[in-house]
């Protein structure tokens, strides 16, 4: 059975690209367009991995992580942040909130995202 990846991202084109790439690699991809929808989906779908953007409408990526920490059931779900920014302060904060990795969109490409995903949950 294909592993389930939840992509929480508001940028349409990023969603399209990553969805295509991940599906191509054999993963099942679930999509959420904002933080709030994302959190609900995590609780409901229990994905194997979460790819999380930070700046989003309704609820930011950090808020999603904070909420996850409160829920024993989902708090240990592997999570990779995909953000436009990458300040050390943010990285630190994300790490404390349980993020496994952090990707700055301008510095990485979809191929490298796949590499990081495989590293976390395998194929």
């Amino acid at each position: 059975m294909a592993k389930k990846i939840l992509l929480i991202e508001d940028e349409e084109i990023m969603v399209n690209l990553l969805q295509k790439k991940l599906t191509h690699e054999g993963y099942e991809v679930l999509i959420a367009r904002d933080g709030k929808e994302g959190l609900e989906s995590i609780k409901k779908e229990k994905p194997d991995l979460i790819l999380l953007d930070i700046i989003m409408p309704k609820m930011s990526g950090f808020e999603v992580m904070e909420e996850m920490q409160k829920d024993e059931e989902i708090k240990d779900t592997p999570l990779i942040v995909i953000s436009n920014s990458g300040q050390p302060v943010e990285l630190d904060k994300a790490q404390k909130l349980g993020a496994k990795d952090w990707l700055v969109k301008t510095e990485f490409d979809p191929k490298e995202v796949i590499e990081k995903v495989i590293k976390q949950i395998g194929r």
Partner: protein
Amino acid sequence: MPSGKEELITLKEDLKKTKEDLFGLEGYIEEFSLFLPLAVCTVNPLHIITNINKAFEELTGFSINESIGEALEEIFKKDSKVKNIIKEIGKKKKTLETELTLITKKKKEIPVKVSFSARKDNEGNFIGYFTAIDEIVELKKFQKGMEEKVKELEDSRKALFNILEDIEEARGVAEDEKNKTLAIITNFTDGLLFFDTNNRLSLVNSQAKKFLKVNKEKILKKPILELEKFGNFKSLIKILTEEDKDIFRIEFSPRKGLALELSRVSISGEEEKIGELVILHDISRDKLIERMKTEFVSLAAHQLRTPLSAIKWTLKMLLDGDLGKVTKEQKEFIEKTYNSNERMIDLINSLLNVTRIEEGRYLYKPTLTSLENIVQFVINSCENQLERKNIKLNYKKPDKKLPQVKVDIEKIRLAIQNLFDNAIRYTPKGGQVTVSLKHDKKEIEFSIADTGVGVPEDQQSRVFSKFFRGANVIRLDTEGSGLGLFITKNIIEAHGGRIWFDSKEGKGTTFYIAFPIKKEFEEFLKKF
């Protein structure tokens, strides 16, 4: 008893003798008066000249014949004084004296003193005057000289008065000027403080009082060190006492919301120093604008990143064939577009770095590491570039192991990467880049020398300025943001290090970086 005849004879003889005596006396008097240098004449009660002497003739030019029988006043200038003296003569006074103007036969006017002495006959009847006329030209000359002198003195007294008046006027003007200057100083928009040579505060204008929140009366005449306890003086005094030379535009903030720029200049009088002027310029508004500018750039750069990463990912997936097959030609174009996009991302990242430097939140995590590792990492990442331009890299490794340094590895890597990028970018094909790492007790020195185009001498002072690009490299290579060296310098200095360079246009450039060794660096870090 002698007879009458004998008596007569005796009398005749006596008479003859007396006549002879008298004659002799007259001759004597005549001779005397002849040689007497004083002009003398006799006048009768009707002031008719009855006799004159030789000196009279010489003085007046009138001969004895021309003189005798003439009225005395005829030889003088007819003025009121002559009329007076003639009147006086009539009063038969014993002596008279006056100054008159003699008119000689040749019509020359000579100032004279005329003295009269009354003559009496045997019976004591008044018979006229002896009149002496004394030339007083010399005296007059002297008098005139005196008068001139007096006039001169008076003139100089007047001149002196004039000078005094001028001085008074000048003093008035100076006073006005002083008042004007004081008014300007008082109402100046910059804060001004003046310290005399004893370092006492001798002038403070109202703007400075406002900036520092102090009462003028309390602080005037106070020595600089005593001022610390007043108002917001503390930070100001710290700067003033730490630096003993002139100060040019040091920023400081006496309190929240107020940013000032402090300058200090020595003020000299004609010859020696009379004190120091401290100028406080309000830059709060400039700071605000600067911050807004930085925030704007930061925001804009962040906003730009989102579409740039979308473009990057799309192109990358196209190139990787994830979105279907592309022809060779299409691939070439996509590659070029991808590279342009990467350049844009680099530029945005540089801009963001600059805004972070300006916001003072750049340095983050100092970690203990070896610079050798960082340099090696950068060299490895440059291999492709070096190869493409056929540039030979010479790496002079340290002869002994370098001491570790505590640095923000990412930032130092970026700083050194920037220097490598420049060296390679501005060195023509087939050139050479020489890198060296060495250390002494205090510092580790990194240097990178190229055989590139160099920095024009007149632009060398601006090398580390934001957006600076040498005139010669703009022509050579249109890429490059002019931010690299600005960022590098800030990174190095934030680590307590130094950066400098040597360059000769057309020959090449060498950049040097010196890092303090751990112990010194820890000292440096304690300040934060």
